[in-house]
């Protein structure tokens, strides 16, 4: 039962958005793991996007765009979020205070660079970091940032700055909380629909998305190595790929393990051995992603001979594994 007076429980997560969503839903009386929130929102993907740049390099996404977990959960569970954006930062601050006053924890979208509690070296201009505000003491807001071990605090001016940072994917003070929750959830149908949906995003016809996208990335590494400025650019490019994979968000391999965890949880819940098998296959894919990161970094650092064809082969191997796994799930 939903108890409005119960204190908000902070649970550390691998990824900010799935963490905030699962923690807010759990608080509202719908217990949900991070993996389940990620899985049923069908947010796993791969996309190589040369037209969108980040620090001058193409964006490589291992999950759907920010906001897709919030929306995906809404769509599949049949629940409702209240989502508000503000053109005036003062209005945004007032609205937050009203929720804090009412004792309602809310999710916020923020820019990491302006959050003072982040370690210096993690502070990049990234506009889509999700956190929960669950209270206030004097000038400090009480914050549950799901990627941190414990709850933390942030002073009001800095928090507002983080909410209203401008630029790509700007938050415009986005504030959200669950409103309507269904009384009963048919997990069997929800999970199967989510997996089928995700099957489509990973097996689509677009050459830069899904499994084809992984192979595209491999080919592109070889292409970059033939550029005239490859000697200088290639290590930067590989470093960027690994950074997109391992650091920004929770990283590509991290999302694979998260999805594998979702498949395992679902398999047990629905007594479905095919999902448990697929979970194992996906763990292997995640391991292969990590080995790729390790090898690519060794080559950047000059600890191994630069061999772009080996990296391409490794990415093709990842693609093969993921493809085999989705083929297993197709019959679901």
């Amino acid at each position, binding site marked *: 039962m939903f108890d409005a007076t119960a204190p908000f429980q902070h649970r550390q997560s691998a990824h900010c958005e799935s963490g905030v969503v699962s923690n807010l839903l759990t608080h509202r009386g719908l217990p949900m793991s991070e993996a389940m929130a990620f899985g049923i929102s069908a947010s796993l993907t791969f996309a190589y996007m040369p037209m969108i740049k980040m620090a001058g390099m193409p964006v490589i996404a291992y999950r759907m765009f920010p906001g897709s977990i919030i929306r995906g959960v809404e769509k599949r569970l049949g629940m409702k979020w209240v989502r508000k954006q503000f053109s005036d930062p003062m209005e945004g601050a007032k609205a937050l205070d009203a929720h804090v006053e009412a004792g309602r924890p809310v999710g916020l979208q923020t820019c990491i660079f302006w959050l003072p509690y982040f370690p*210096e070296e*993690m502070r990049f*201009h990234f506009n889509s970091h999700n956190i929960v505000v669950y209270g206030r003491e004097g000038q400090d807001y009480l914050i549950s940032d799901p990627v941190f071990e414990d709850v933390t605090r942030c002073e009001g001016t800095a928090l507002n700055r983080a909410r209203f940072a401008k630029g790509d994917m700007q938050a415009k003070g986005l504030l959200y909380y669950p409103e309507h929750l269904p009384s009963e959830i048919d997990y069997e149908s929800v999970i199967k629909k989510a997996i089928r949906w995700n099957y489509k995003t990973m097996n689509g016809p677009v050459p830069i998305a899904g499994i084809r996208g992984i192979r595209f990335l491999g080919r592109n590494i070889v292409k970059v190595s033939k550029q005239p400025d490859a000697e200088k650019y290639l290590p930067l490019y590989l470093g960027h790929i690994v*950074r997109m994979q*391992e*650091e920004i968000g929770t990283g590509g391999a991290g999302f694979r393990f998260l999805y594998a965890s979702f498949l395992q*949880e679902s398999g047990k819940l629905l007594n479905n051995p095919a999902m448990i098998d697929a979970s194992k296959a996906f763990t292997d894919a995640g391991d292969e992603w990590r080995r790729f990161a390790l090898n690519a970094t060794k080559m950047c650092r000059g600890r191994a001979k630069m061999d772009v064809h080996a990296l391409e082969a490794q990415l093709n191997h990842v693609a093969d594994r993921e493809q085999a796994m989705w083929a297993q799930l197709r019959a679901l």
Partner: protein
Amino acid sequence: MKTDEVPQDPTTTYGGVRKLLYAVDDKGEYTGVRSQGWDVENYVTQAAVEELTRLAEEALKRARAGQTSALEYHMFAQRMDLATLSATTGIWAWRVKRHFKPSVFAKLNDKMLARYAFAMGVTVDQLRHLPQQDA
């Protein structure tokens, strides 16, 4: 990844924070494990920070030589690039680039400087000047 394979490399980039990773225990069950860091990730993060530091230092040299304005130095020092600065201020990239010219930058009014200063989180006075040279 097995739980005992979760990397625990001491790293500076986490600032003492441990991240949560999902891994499989000996019974094959998925569970969350806290990681102190991974050498590979640490390296690429530091490389990215160093690249920005290098760009800032290079801009500082050029600014001292009068080849660029203090704006370009502060941009990199605040971990931005041209695209980020343009997006966060709402000033077109070609205009920002023009403001890298010391003669143009010197004539900017306070309103324009305030837009830059706000986006970067520095004061207008800081923005106008380069950091003191170490003796």
